[in-house]
């Protein structure tokens, strides 16, 4: 090889790495979940590719996303989004579509289309990341009247006296109220579409209204359980798992009728780093990075990740309890989220 060729190659090499090193922003939900993503997805990706990721927290919802896309001032590139918001964001054209056929095979060679759970690839705009769930938990030390095992027990203040902490929104609470009132899980959403069903749920909630503490963010739930503010709390499973495993708190999870859903990686419409963002999502949803999610009690969406997961932890993952649970209906909440939100607020003010 002559010198010129080497020089040209070198130049091309440096140029291409220079061009390729991009800096983009990813947003997620923070807490222990965000830290795990930082450690097992963001940092390894930066190390491997040389790209730089600004990893930030947001509080969910699509308001900021909508504002960014509509103004053309796109600040975020990749986002971790709940399916409940994903449907809406995708159909409003706020997200890019993701080329699902480019997803890599699992580490054991299973093709991506089979490796991922069906729900994880159901939406054209994003790739499922984890299964997470909302369940209720109680504190062994403060609970009186035995051990609650069903959602009906949550509504039974006679048998289990004390405060219950619920998140202040209609989601989950309306479903649980109907289930506790004897409605079969599969009928919950059809019933909630009717005026009578909605009223029935609110009436059921009203039976324990005086014993409810309403909170705004998931992190408050373990705190309330810990400081004695409540004997039972509604909580995202990861938060309570964290309190049990790393802080050794005497909390117990109740899996009955838990409402599970997926979190998804998606790309913001109009992102200037679309290609790298896709590369990141392919990386982050690989078997190995996804297998870190059980550290915070969330179930990976691909089968091949479970080979890396601690056997002891598997029973504590929502993915092991899908039969006991109910899939939160993003379609229902897209339809009735706003009107029920108003009704719920009205009911709260009564």
């Amino acid at each position, binding site marked *: 090889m002559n010198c010129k060729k080497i020089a040209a190659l070198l130049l091309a090499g440096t140029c291409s790495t220079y061009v390729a090193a991009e800096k983009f922003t990813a947003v997620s939900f923070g807490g222990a979940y965000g830290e795990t993503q930082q450690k097992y997805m963001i940092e390894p990706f930066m190390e491997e590719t040389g790209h730089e990721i600004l990893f930030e927290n947001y509080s969910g*919802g*699509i*308001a*900021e996303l*909508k504002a960014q896309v509509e103004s053309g001032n796109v600040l975020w590139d990749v986002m971790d989004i709940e399916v409940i918001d994903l*449907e*809406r*964001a*995708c*159909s*409003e*054209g706020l997200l890019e*579509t993701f080329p699902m056929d480019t997803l890599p095979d699992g580490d054991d060679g299973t093709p991506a289309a089979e490796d991922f759970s069906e729900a994880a690839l159901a939406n054209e705009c994003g790739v499922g990341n984890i299964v997470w769930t909302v369940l209720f938990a109680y504190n062994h030390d403060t609970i009186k009247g035995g051990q609650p095992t069903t959602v009906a027990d949550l509504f039974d203040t006679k048998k289990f006296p004390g*405060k219950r902490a619920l998140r*202040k929104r209609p989601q989950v609470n309306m479903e649980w109220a109907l289930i506790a009132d004897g409605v079969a899980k599969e009928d919950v959403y059809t019933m909630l*579409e009717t005026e009578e069903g909605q009223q029935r749920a609110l009436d059921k909630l009203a039976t324990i209204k005086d014993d409810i*503490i*309403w*909170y705004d963010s998931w992190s408050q739930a373990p705190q*309330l359980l810990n*400081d*004695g*503010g409540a004997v039972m709390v509604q909580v995202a499973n990861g938060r309570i798992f964290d309190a049990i495993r790393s802080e050794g708190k005497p909390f117990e999870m109740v899996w009955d009728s838990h409402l599970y859903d997926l979190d998804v990686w998606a790309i913001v419409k109009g992102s200037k780093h679309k290609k790298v963002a896709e590369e990141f999502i392919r990386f982050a949803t690989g078997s190995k990075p996804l297998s870190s999610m059980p550290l915070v009690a969330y179930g990976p969406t691909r089968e091949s990740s479970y080979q890396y997961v601690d056997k002891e932890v598997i029973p504590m993952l929502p993915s092991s309890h899908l039969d006991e649970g109910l899939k939160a209906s993003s*379609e*229902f909440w*897209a*339809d*009735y*989220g*706003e*009107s*029920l*939100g*108003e*009704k719920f*607020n*009205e009911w*709260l*003010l009564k």
Partner: protein
Amino acid sequence: MSAHLSIEEIAHSQKQLRRKKLKLFAFTLPLLCFVTLAFLAPIATMLYRSVYNPSVSQLIPKTLVQMEQWKTVSGKMPPAEVLTTFSLELRELAISRESGKLAEEVNRVIPGSSSLVKSSARKIKRLSVEALTEGQGQQLLALHKKWNNPLLWSGIKAQGSVWTDRYYLTATDLTRNQMGEIESRDTQIYLKLYWRSLRIALLITLLTAILAFPLAYYLANTSAKKANILLVFVLLPFWTSLLVRTTSWIALLQTNGVINSTLQFLGIINQPIEMLYTEFATIISMTHILLPFMVLPLYSVMKSIDPSYFRAALSLGSKPMPAFFKIYFPMTLPGLSAGALLVFIISIGYYITPALVGGTDGQMISNIIAFHMQSSNNWELAAALSSLMLGVIILLYWIYDRFVGINNIKLG
């Protein structure tokens, strides 16, 4: 006589005055422009957004034009050509992935139609233009029985008007029925929240007045040296960050917070009392935060009242209480009213403290505005709610200016 000015002299002085006015105006102009652009224009945009709602008319313009002939009152379905055009436009929206925008808008008038529009759009995307034109909208009607409901179509038509008072109606718990008449909504929430905000603001104003009065009186009537030292204790909270003061109240009021553990330690209570995340928490922390705004104007007024009036009344045989209410109290009114209006105006629009310590029953109208801005994405409704609140504030501001004078605001 020289006292009479000649016409030229008058003209000259008027010209000078005009020039002077222009010069003074030139000083103010940069800020006027700045405030207009950076502050008034955003507020105006928001007012505009609460009545101007073009998105549906941009999404399905042709359908809306054809719908003009169709009377919603008739209770009949719109003609076939409307259905055809709508099917074609829905197909376009599905292809450009904008059907969700339409779905959200329609869902606001008829809850439950978001998934209807979205799923229909997905299915209609697969049909060809020719098939849809030929089908005269029958494919759409076959997709879901909800499309056969004239109410849905009148909802789409209503949502299609560019100028709307709908958000103001919603913001006052009203709605327009099928016949276009205004009636009260099923869900009654916003008026209640306005009343609650007014009630909380009034209560806080009252509490600050009750607390501030003895303190201001004491400060005004003690030695100047002592007053200056004690004033620091009023001014330090005034200068301390709002977030810091809210944090302190969280630390104080928590279930295992300072107040509860002190009371338990003293044996006054056995079980901790719920204080945080209640209306009580909102009221007490806001009273604390706004108290300096009441103390300072009261103090400055009281300091200027000559105590000899009061003493004169006493020495003329009046009893202390009547003398106080007849002589002294009326003289403090300018300070009291200034403080009261200031506290009231500030507290009615407060957001941060209720959001952090308020829980459910401590929420105010500003919290629901934030909810519609950040969670439900109903920005138009948020704008309408804000505009109504702005109306109340401007009214109070006008009263303030009328009776106290906006120029009399003093700081520190």
